[in-house]
């Protein structure tokens, strides 16, 4: 049986908005293709984390308190994550995970939390604590050159700047900053975004894009995932796109 490995970073701390659902969905969709997704975890204080063999490294979002708690431990993982990324492992990061892999996060009290510095972008909290980007969001990204609408829910105070290669163009909602034109950050093997929902729940092509990428990388041949029953997902997208883009 084919096998992929996912390293879930701090699942006990970074699981604020059902983000662990992304792991469940990847596992489910891998399973439909006869691929076993093996999930390992990094918890604060672990010393034996295997970054090298991970096909996917996943970071969810967390509350401020939890993000502060793990910031130091995450810095210890810097070399491992960087090496895996440079070696082509796929990085999927949501909200807090997105922020923590950039240069820094300046919180609403003016305190600077150092990020991993893997990417150039940086995040500054809005000066008014009560002002947050909250609500349904639709963006348009590209998957293998084709446009794909991604539906999710954003809830963040941080304003992320310095993004050169965004995840998508905002069709409805805020994005990286209040009323931003762009959302998230993307490279060939990176998706970093503010979208909860969880992200993969209403965007099955995105899950399949990640699975294809990882399988192709592993086998050295282009992998095309078999079509599966996505009737519920397709109907869900139809209803929500009409509601969210129709409202605009």
């Amino acid at each position, binding site marked *: 049986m084919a096998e992929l490995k996912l390293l879930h970073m701090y699942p*006990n701390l970074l*699981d*604020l*908005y*059902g*983000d*662990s*659902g992304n792991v*469940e*969905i990847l596992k*489910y969709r891998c399973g439909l293709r006869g691929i076993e997704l093996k999930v390992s975890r990094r918890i604060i204080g672990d010393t034996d984390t295997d970054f090298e063999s991970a096909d996917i490294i996943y970071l969810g979002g967390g*509350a*401020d*308190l939890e993000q502060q*708690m793990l910031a130091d431990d995450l810095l210890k993982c810097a070399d491992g994550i960087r090496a895996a990324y440079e070696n082509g492992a796929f990085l999927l990061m949501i909200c807090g995970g997105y922020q923590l892999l950039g240069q820094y996060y300046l919180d609403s009290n003016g305190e600077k939390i150092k990020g991993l510095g893997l990417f150039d972008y940086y995040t500054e909290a809005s000066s008014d604590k009560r002002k947050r980007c*909250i*609500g*349904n969001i639709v963006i348009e990204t590209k998957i293998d050159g084709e446009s794909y609408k991604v539906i999710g*829910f954003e*809830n963040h105070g941080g304003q992320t700047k310095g993004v050169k290669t965004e995840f998508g163009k905002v069709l409805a909602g805020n994005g990286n900053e209040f009323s931003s034109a762009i959302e998230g950050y993307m490279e060939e093997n990176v998706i970093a975004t503010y979208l*909860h*929902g*969880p992200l993969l*729940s*209403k965007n099955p092509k995105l899950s399949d894009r990640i699975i294809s990428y990882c399988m192709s990388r592993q086998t050295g041949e282009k992998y095309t995932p078999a079509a599966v*029953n996505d*009737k*519920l*997902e397709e*109907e*869900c997208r139809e*209803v*929500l796109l009409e509601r969210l883009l129709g409202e605009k």
Partner: protein
Amino acid sequence: MSVKNSLTIWFGKFMVKCLRLIGRDAGNAPGLVLWTLNKDCLKAFKVECPIIAVTGTNGKTSVTNYLSHIFASGKGKIITNTQGNNLDTGICSLLLANCDMKGRVKADYLVLETDESHVPVIYSKLKLETLVLLNFFRDQLDRNGEVETLILKVKKFLETFEGNVVLNADDPNVARLGRANPNNKNIFYFSVERYSGATDEPYEVGEGKFCPFCDTELVYDYYQYSHVGRFHCPKCRFGEDKPFTLIKNVDLSAPSFEADGETYKTAHNSIYYMYNLAAVYTAAKLYDFDKKILHDTFEHFEVNNGRLETFNIAGSELMVNLAKNPVGANMTLRVMNEQECEKELLFVLNDNLADGHDVSWIWDINFSIFRDVTRVVTSGTRAYDIAIRIKCSGYDPDKIVVRPDLDDAMEELFKNSGRKFAIANYTAVQPTRAAIKRYKERREANG
């Protein structure tokens, strides 16, 4: 009474009268208007009787209904918001409807369900005698913010509060508040001994895994549900306070529990419900009620209103339970699983303002425990989201039927007869009950 307070009451009363004259139920509107005009409007009321407030994420409405029933059986006139209008404006409307022209509220007791985030603002203006704190779970994050923010809000209020505090000793998020005011001697913890369904490992996500006083990871002897269970901090000994009420021998098959040496029969049998009764028992104990009233209430009283409410329709039994968050939904799934028979589930999920627009919490519900569920019908404004969630837990998508419209959902659900369960979130629960009643009428009209 100050001129401003007199004017507040007169104006409020006038408003209620006008609304009634044009045939409208006053509802929440007068409170909202008063609050807008005068932020201190609650101070205009003169409440001389004790106020008992119930707060927490889950179970507020049930506990308030139980306490009201007990207080009304024992000690005369009570005023209460059993329908769950629990915000500052709702409570303001309630008092306005029940006061005289001088703002005097005549009753023996006020039993008030109170939203967690509104506890400080309301009871800085009304004198509270007893606060009952049930639990703190993740709930509507986009509206309420993180759980920690809410806990800190209540903690700040308790720092200067000297009245009775009834606290769940088994929820670390609540138990920590017993230390908010070291000078307050009126701290009454309740705890429930390990029951048959408790587990050694947590089986649902939860908050509060670290000691709030020293950041050490908490150690659990067992989990009753979610993060509720017997815990302690190995470093600073948080969690070792002796409970004022210890509920023993929870027997889900009887069902019954034991408190202070007496066995009480109960109407329902989930652990979640037993914790609600533990809170009710503890608060009632402070007011010295006749045990006979307690026995009678626990055995016979039903809140209904979408809380473990049962409907019998055309040979089927349907139990409806409100679930606003993963803990509530997981609890209903457990109750469902305990039934040794095939069953069907209806899940109604809305994303209206009062629900929180974000429905990602459904991914924290543990559907992998499904046993003998032959079909799932989903409904509500987010019917598809919940369908996808259940599918990705490994449930056969061909057994999931999506019917966003509630009347269609009922037609679908009752195509087969048998045992059925319904979970509905906050704004979905009343429309679901109404749709059930409409369906029942249609069936009966058609013979």
